């Protein structure tokens, strides 16, 4: 981690953390995770969209993934973005309640988030407010339930679903 690229990444990460602090008016929960010291920002739901806009404005133009974790009492919406220029990586984690509170979409910033949010909607039942086309992406339209939820009951062992 002593190369120029690593220094550039570290500098970009520090600038990013500073910009997030300015945008979110200091209410920010940052940490460095893993051996690569990736910036992890834990957010409230109302901070999610401003933080994503900040990352987009700072040039983190590639969305690595957007997924969700089911903790049985709440969800955690997780995404990682990356900058092709500076190499800066940032992860956002935002807790969502289980009762169908919609999260703001980021599909107008990163186009990949369109399908990623559809997948999170398909597998976990998350609602993304402002998404242009929030349909199921991997399962048939007539599917009941969201399979990656912890409380999902598979119908295959009970009855055989007919989707064809």
């Amino acid at each position, binding site marked *: 981690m002593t190369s120029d690229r690593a220094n550039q990444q570290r500098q970009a990460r520090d600038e990013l953390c500073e910009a997030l602090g300015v945008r979110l008016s200091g209410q920010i929960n940052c940490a460095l995770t893993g051996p690569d010291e990736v910036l992890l920002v834990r957010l409230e739901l109302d901070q999610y969209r401003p933080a994503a806009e900040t990352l987009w404005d700072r040039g983190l133009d590639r969305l690595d993934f957007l997924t969700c974790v089911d903790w049985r009492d709440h969800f955690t919406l997780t995404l990682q973005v990356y900058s092709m220029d500076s190499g800066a990586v940032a992860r956002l984690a935002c807790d969502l309640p289980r009762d169908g509170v919609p999260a703001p979409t980021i599909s107008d910033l990163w186009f990949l988030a369109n399908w990623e949010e559809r997948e999170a909607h398909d597998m976990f039942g998350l609602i993304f407010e402002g998404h242009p086309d929030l349909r199921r992406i991997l*399962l048939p339209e007539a599917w009941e339930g969201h*399979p990656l939820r912890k409380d999902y009951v*598979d119908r295959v062992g009970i009855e055989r679903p007919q989707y064809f």
Partner: protein
Amino acid sequence: MRERAEDPREQAEDPTFPVDGAGEVDHPAEQPDEPLKEPPPLSPWLNNGVIVPTQAPVHDSYGPLVIGPGIVVHSVEDVLEWVRSHSLWMLMFGLACCAIEMMHANASKFDLDRFGIMPRGSPRQSDLLIVSGTVTYKVAPMVKRVYEQMAEPRWVIAMGNCATAGSLYFHDGYSVVKGVDQVIPVDVYVSGCPPRPEALIDGIVELRRLIEGKPTDRGREGRS
């Protein structure tokens, strides 16, 4: 009332009823000098155009009945089945990792072309559908639609354990169809995860025997 048929002159004036011989020129008939010979028989196995078998048909054999040099008697259906089994055009339809093995079987090392199997890009031109891979509930309507677009006669090989019975997704997989035979009829099942090209070729040879109505290697009687 005049009776025109009894007056030959009035009949001759009417152009619709010419007199016999009017307007014709007599030509001398060319009589052959020697009378026509009886044509020689085409072959000793033909008797006035009727094929006479020189050997009794053997009921155990499935091949054509050779009744002489150059003469083979066979049913049209058997010839059609023979032709169909030797020119199975398959649909290029890959679903999962089994498709890699199917491509490998198509390539030069295993060369499905020597069985008359040629990959086609359209289901309307193909006879054989190799369901190569995992069939999910999402893709099952497409598989059924592809099958319905194929012209009859059509055959289906379920390649690999997923297409056969759901494989490792059988118990806990929420999204995988437990065997493609729930969607479309299947003629031959090829096991393996994924099966090697030799196994696929074995299944194809089995399908050819099924088409030709021969007894198969697995002890089942084929369609005949």
